């Protein structure tokens, strides 16, 4: 039986390892996801640094061609499947979503823990295969290269991706049900924080798209194992069919990666400008619209692959239709700042960085959607730069905004604000040096997944300079990221104790104690009476009577009653 008392919270009510590994508390599961995806990000990030070092000069620098091919494959697979897909829904979504809903937990807590372990098992397969078996297919596993003569470890990777797909499906399913069925009284759909809207939209994509990668992996597995002849042209199969199957998942998967970022940006920008997000309804519903439209654009990855011209044209057009709502969101966020009260703390600095970088990623996406221009840019570094601006400049930067924003709530500690701002500057500058040069490299013709460019130095003399600059930038970027790791870790032991509501935010998690209590979020059901960003109505938190910081612990009905008779027993 867990201990209870005024200083007991979800972190310290039971400190045994077992209590963590077997917990069904969404907050602890969220933290475990945070650790797991951070490890994956660190590992995949170190691999990226190795790739950059290899490319700093033409010729062999630090590794052989085969090693290089395995390293970029491992980088891609880990970043996509182990890090960026589970990162925000798994870590922040798990922690924040039920509290923002005013629920005691997600709808299926045991399923939630199961998804975490399924994810770990899947990743163990992937990692094992990549380390033992020399997989060098790239993360896209295009047939017939992947199904052909190469290493049999591809079999193990497909099993790993298949398994981790279940984790993604179950997490999405859990969140959809939780949002539908467990909202607090008064928390109507148009009062939902935009973070919830975006996680909800993400979950729809997870549930609808992931089964398709599942069956694709099954077919690829059987193709490799017994040669069923569906994808392998030598046996009468069609490699383009594989690409259709693969991108039918992997394009929507891009929205699994970026939609949660939109939610974080919306929440943080509202809090740090004290204004409701401009065009709330548009921002909320366009996330859901993007989730569905995202299923209709997969063919834009295949403009040069041999699909018909008609389908290429249709895919290009729909790609634009999906681009517009995304662009309008950016304008809405900037519009939110108009006549706001802008507080330049670390989370807000990341939001500004996001708006800058994601806009570049978006505009270059428009360029890649132009059919004839894409012919030139397809499979070059331009594409590499584009998706790093969207995924890293978008999702990772937004993730950092979210981590810095919710860190006090999660750990009960404040990090060093000054170091936070310096690190953000390093990341912003390093990122642009690393990846902006890659736009130029790509439009100059540098193909992606190239181990070497020594053979073309006579005809393409800029490549060496540009690659070198990009590599130097990656070191600045890495320095910034390691700083973040350092001061966040340090804050756990040496950080100042965080107040309940350090940012003066209005959503439910901030009107609660810090850290969150154990075992349940709410002893009494909160009742919601206004929108998530209605600062003009929040008189009790700040305004004439308040101190401008707001401290939810002073709102009486939300203080958990910890007297033993009231607290719910463990199941």
């Amino acid at each position, binding site marked *: 039986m867990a201990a209870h008392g005024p200083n007991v919270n979800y972190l310290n009510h039971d400190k045994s390892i077992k209590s963590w590994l077997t917990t069904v508390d969404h907050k602890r599961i969220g933290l475990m996801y945070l650790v797991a995806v951070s490890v994956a990000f660190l590992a995949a990030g170190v691999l990226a640094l190795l790739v950059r070092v290899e490319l700093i000069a033409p010729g062999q620098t630090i590794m052989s061609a085969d090693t290089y091919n395995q390293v970029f494959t491992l980088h891609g697979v880990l970043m996509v499947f182990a890090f960026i897909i589970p990162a925000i829904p798994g870590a922040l979504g798990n922690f924040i979503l039920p509290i923002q809903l005013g629920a*005691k937990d997600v709808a299926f807590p045991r399923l939630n823990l199961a998804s975490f372990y399924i994810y770990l098992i899947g990743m163990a397969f992937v990692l094992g295969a990549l380390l033992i078996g020399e997989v060098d297919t790239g993360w896209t596993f295009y047939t017939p290269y992947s199904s052909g003569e190469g290493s049999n470890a591809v079999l193990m990777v497909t099993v790993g991706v298949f398994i981790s797909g279940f984790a993604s499906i179950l997490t999405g399913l859990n969140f959809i049900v939780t949002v539908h069925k467990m909202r607090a009284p008064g928390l109507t759909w148009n009062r939902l924080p935009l973070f919830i809207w975006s996680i909800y939209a993400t979950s729809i994509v997870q549930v609808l798209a992931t089964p398709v990668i599942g069956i694709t992996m099954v077919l690829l597995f059987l193709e490799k194992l017994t040669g069923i002849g569906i994808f392998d042209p030598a046996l009468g199969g069609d490699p383009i069919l594989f690409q259709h*199957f693969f991108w039918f998942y992997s394009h929507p998967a891009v929205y699994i990666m970026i939609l949660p970022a939109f939610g974080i940006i919306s929440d943080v920008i509202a809090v740090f400008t004290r204004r409701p997000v401009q065009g709330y309804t548009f921002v909320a519903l366009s996330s859901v619209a993007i989730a569905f439209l995202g299923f209709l654009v997969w063919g834009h990855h295949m403009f040069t692959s041999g699909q018909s011209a008609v389908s290429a044209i249709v895919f290009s057009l729909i790609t634009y239709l999906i681009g517009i709502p995304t662009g309008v969101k950016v304008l809405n966020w900037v519009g939110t700042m108009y006549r706001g009260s802008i507080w330049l703390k670390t989370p807000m600095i990341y939001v500004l960085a996001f708006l800058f970088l994601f806009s570049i990623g978006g505009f270059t996406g428009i360029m890649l959607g132009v059919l004839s221009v894409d012919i030139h840019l397809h499979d070059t570094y331009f594409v590499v730069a584009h998706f790093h601006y969207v995924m890293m400049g978008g999702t990772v930067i937004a993730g950092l905004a979210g981590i810095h924003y919710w860190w006090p709530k999660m750990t009960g500690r404040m990090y060093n604000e000054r170091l936070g701002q310096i690190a953000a500057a390093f990341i912003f500058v390093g990122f642009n040096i690393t990846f902006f040069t890659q736009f130029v490299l790509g439009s100059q013709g540098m193909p992606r997944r190239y181990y070497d460019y020594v053979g073309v130095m006579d005809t393409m003399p800029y490549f060496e300079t540009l690659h070198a600059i990009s590599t130097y930038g990656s070191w600045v970027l890495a320095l910034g990221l390691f700083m973040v790791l350092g001061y966040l870790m340090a804050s756990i032991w040496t950080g100042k104790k965080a107040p309940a509501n350090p940012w003066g935010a209005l959503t439910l998690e901030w*009107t609660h104690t810090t850290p969150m209590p154990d075992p*349940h979020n709410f002893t009494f059901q*909160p009742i919601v009476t206004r929108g998530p960003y209605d600062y003009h109505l929040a008189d009790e938190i700040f305004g004439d009577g308040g101190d401008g910081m707001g401290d939810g612990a002073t709102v009486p*009905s939300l203080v958990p009653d910890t007297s033993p008779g009231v607290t719910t027993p463990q199941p």
Partner: protein
Amino acid sequence: MSTTTAPTTAPAAEGHAEHHHPPHLKHYFVSSEQQFDASKMGMWLFLLTEVLLFSGMFVAYIVYRAWHPEVFVKMSELLNPFWGGFNTIVLLGSSFSAALAIHYAQKNDNKKLIINLCITLMCAGIFMVVKYIEYTDKFSHGIGMGEFFDPTGSYAQYAIPYAKQFFSIYFVMTGIHGVHVVIGMGIFTWLLVRAVKGHFNSEYYTPVELAGLYWHLVDIIWIFLFPLLYLI
């Protein structure tokens, strides 16, 4: 967001203190209805993912059939519509008994619930036995998947281009469907054990209902597979 209510009017979890707490109600739900609705919605979403899993295979089927219709017509000669039809009826029967199981759980008739769970299990078993006979017959004639497709004897005339693709699709689709039937048998066995222990009644029959939903899906997928593979 805030709350304007005093603790005394908050309706949430004070049920514990008042001892109105049914044993099946999880602490994080407000009421049995909420719990039931949530479970049911979760199941429907799960079934949606199952449909999408199979739709990937149906797309592969459609693509290859569109490219080589004559091969598909010829190959379906090798599949026996009698046994396929028999299995269809068996599965339909088991779906009916699964529905009856839910009905009797709602009526608090534990005995009939147990009988119907047994019938469902039995039908699933018959289905798998027929499937086993069909598979071994294919294998004995050298009709397998991928590199194991090497028809011998009287079947040698079927070794035409893209025959392999037909049987790859046949084995993948019916194989994954068969896996679902086996999983369903596991679930119904578990339900049977719980039913014997008397866990289900008119207030709590969620697992029976959800297993029934799952079983109907397995049935419906077979209803698509049967004509596509055996008949046309």
